[in-house]
């Protein structure tokens, strides 16, 4: 029983570490045009570093028919885009000043962020 309890505690620790403490790797974009695949509940890539001060174009390729994947919202930029199914959807972002910009679906199940540096 002690063993099982220990295992449970370890499992909890693992959950906390995996979802909250771990800082994921970032995708460094080399161009100002970034393709993002929208499928299976995630944006790929979802954690993108871009250079501040230049205009950026994002191409969202939506392959997920779930209504959740339908809209991508950039709350800080007050932008949103309805993603058409099975094709690339382009959104042009203004030049960003340094900082973090989230993007997500209406329900925040799909989540991603742009880090402008």
């Amino acid at each position, binding site marked *: *029983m002690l063993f*099982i*309890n220990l295992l*449970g505690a370890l*499992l*909890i620790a693992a*959950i*906390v570490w*995996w*979802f*909250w403490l*771990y800082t*994921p790797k970032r995708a460094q974009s080399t161009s100002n045009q970034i393709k993002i695949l929208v*499928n*299976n*509940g*995630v944006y790929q890539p*979802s954690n993108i570093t871009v250079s501040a001060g230049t205009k950026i174009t994002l191409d969202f390729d939506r392959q*997920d*028919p*779930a*209504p959740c994947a*339908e*809209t991508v*919202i950039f*709350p800080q930029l*007050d932008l*949103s885009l*309805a993603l*058409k*199914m*099975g*094709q*690339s959807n*382009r959104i042009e972002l203004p030049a960003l000043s340094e900082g973090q910009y989230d993007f997500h679906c*209406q*329900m*925040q*199940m799909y*989540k991603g962020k742009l880090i402008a540096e």
Partner: protein
Amino acid sequence: MSSKSKVKTQSFMIEGASCASCVSKIEKALASVEGVTGVEMNFAQRTVTIDGDVNSHSLIHSVTDIGYNATPMNSGSEQDALAEKAQADEAHYNNLMRNMVIALGLGIPLMLYGLFIGDMSVNTSNQRIGWAIVGLVTLSVMIGTGKHFYIGAWQSFKHHSANMDTLIALGTGTAWAYSMLVILVPNLLPEMARHVYFEASAMIIGLINLGLAFEVKARGRTSEAIKRLIGLQPNTARVVRNGEEEDVDIAQVQLNDIVRVRPGEKIPVDGELTDGQSTVDESMLTGEPMPISKTVGDKVVAGSINKTGSMLFSATHVGKDTTLSHIINMVKKAQNSKPSIGRLADVISGYFVPIVMILAVITGLAWLNFGPQPAIAYAITAMTTVLIIACPCALGLATPMSVMVGIGKAAEAGVLIRNGEALQSASKITTMLLDKTGTITQGQPEVTDISTFEQRQESCVMALVASLESQSEHPLAQAIVGYAKQRDYPLNAVTKFDAITGKGVTGYLNGEHLLFGNEALMHQFGIDVSVAVEQAGTLANDAKTPMYFAVDQKLSALIAVSDPIKSDSLAAIKRLQNKGIHLVMLTGDNEATAKAVAKRVGIDDYIAQVMPQDKVEEVIKRQKHGEVVGMTGDGINDAPALAQADVGFAIGTGTDVAIESADVTLMRGSLHGLADALAISQATITNIKQNLVGAFMYNVAGIPIAAGVLFPFFGILLNPVVAGAAMALSSLTVVSNANRLRFFKVNKSA
């Protein structure tokens, strides 16, 4: 809306085509795509047009495969895009329903068997073989109908995030894995715990597919407002070209084209009437129920319906620039933004899933440590139930669904709300500042009273006054000149015209010295006005502006001009006051006029002689006192105050600057739109709160019960299948509550 019969044409922008030889390469690649019947590339413009019923995705791929980039150009109309989306939604819905039928088709018989025929325990080797087969069938059904949950769970797990899919995958996976463990190594478990839970896995997958299908349907319905708006625009327009009228595609209509609209037809683009007259029904755009009569020079907007006469107009805004397109875009954008009341739910759902996973582990440990025998069976049931009942989908739906319906509802009433935040703030307004001119009043002064004090006839007097005033730039002058022009009074050239600031104007006509202005002007020239003073006072108290006219040093007439109060302002102001909102009228007019207008419409608080910058100050002052301030105005000079206010309401018939600065645009020139906006905003916020409370309650109450806190006292432990059903039901509750808003009726009298 079948586009199958006609040949579909799509256009793409091509990037990377640097030489003319690329053209044949690209054309060849596109022509090789199945279904393409024609390809034509314009090298100069780097565009390519493709005929044939082909999906744009495969076309783009064929171009990218050979190293170029293709982006779809505004292919087809909004209607086509909408039809495409409806089709995709329909396919997704059918897919979900099929999954539901298959999964429940396995789950329900299994559950009935467990309940009525045999038990689902595994003791003999025959049972082991039988259940192993059922287990494999269940696995294939789980994968076949719930693949997207497992892939989604894995993908988001890899990205260090967790969502609804994670919970579903864990819940159903746990139930299935435990069951297989029972079958494969029964000896590892106490005899009482040798029980399989395949029915739970199948039922949960089926029910969640059902919940998602409900959601797809409900979302389709919430975008009805946009659908209706897009449907307002006709597909073709009748354009006069080379002296002949021809029907052209709406996208082909150019600026300054002359467009013919016959009675009963929809107006295709924005324009200005050049010939004919008619009445136009603009109710779908403005909420204004009465048709409006239009004559040459009047503006018409796309989407309104021409009622009585045939007319010609010249196109002033086409394509994406029409008022209707702007409205559609604004509603679309607003529906995608959320009020801050919804952000709380977002923050919570970000932490929610991992917390639920932790709670599930704790639940399992608690049952194993303190639970009755068979502890492991109880632990598995409770863990699975916790994971399933915690699915946050109802929580995630709560705000966007209501916002979508609410903003769409408002658009139908002619109220354009720019974003979800404005929708929320509007429901909290305590003080509303109303600009007088153009908001409470019509904004166009009219001559209301004429009294003459000499032999000359009224028409003769007015002709003289209008001739004099036609040189003036004062707003009141327009009222006088307009009055004379309407009656075809002759206007003559005045000599030695002079404007005396703040008093009036003077000039000579036919050798007579004319004076027109206020009492101060008369005093300055020593004219006796005693016969008219009393009457002037009465007029002033009646919210009219009295002005004296003198010819050759003798009082000739007293003329009153006033900006009439809109016929429905009084009722609309009552509605606002009944909501408990403190109203303040702002005006640049003098004290007497301001007081009279305020009294007429029943506003106690007014501020006269305000300058534009004073309006902003007034907003700030009241905000500092802790008021949530709304500002309603129509003019350029209201713009700063509209922007400063917590919620700025622009009268849509006003200036573009005002509309740009405001959060809400009232398409109808009536204050009823304001009261409607507040009513809809309140109804939407209430609806969101109901949804959030419902969704939270379900999770907050559901999780402990699922974990088994009631078990020690009442012996109650939820079945995972019940949790799955409850989850589908909670989504259904939220979407139906949000859709209830669609039936919200604005009460015009309250």
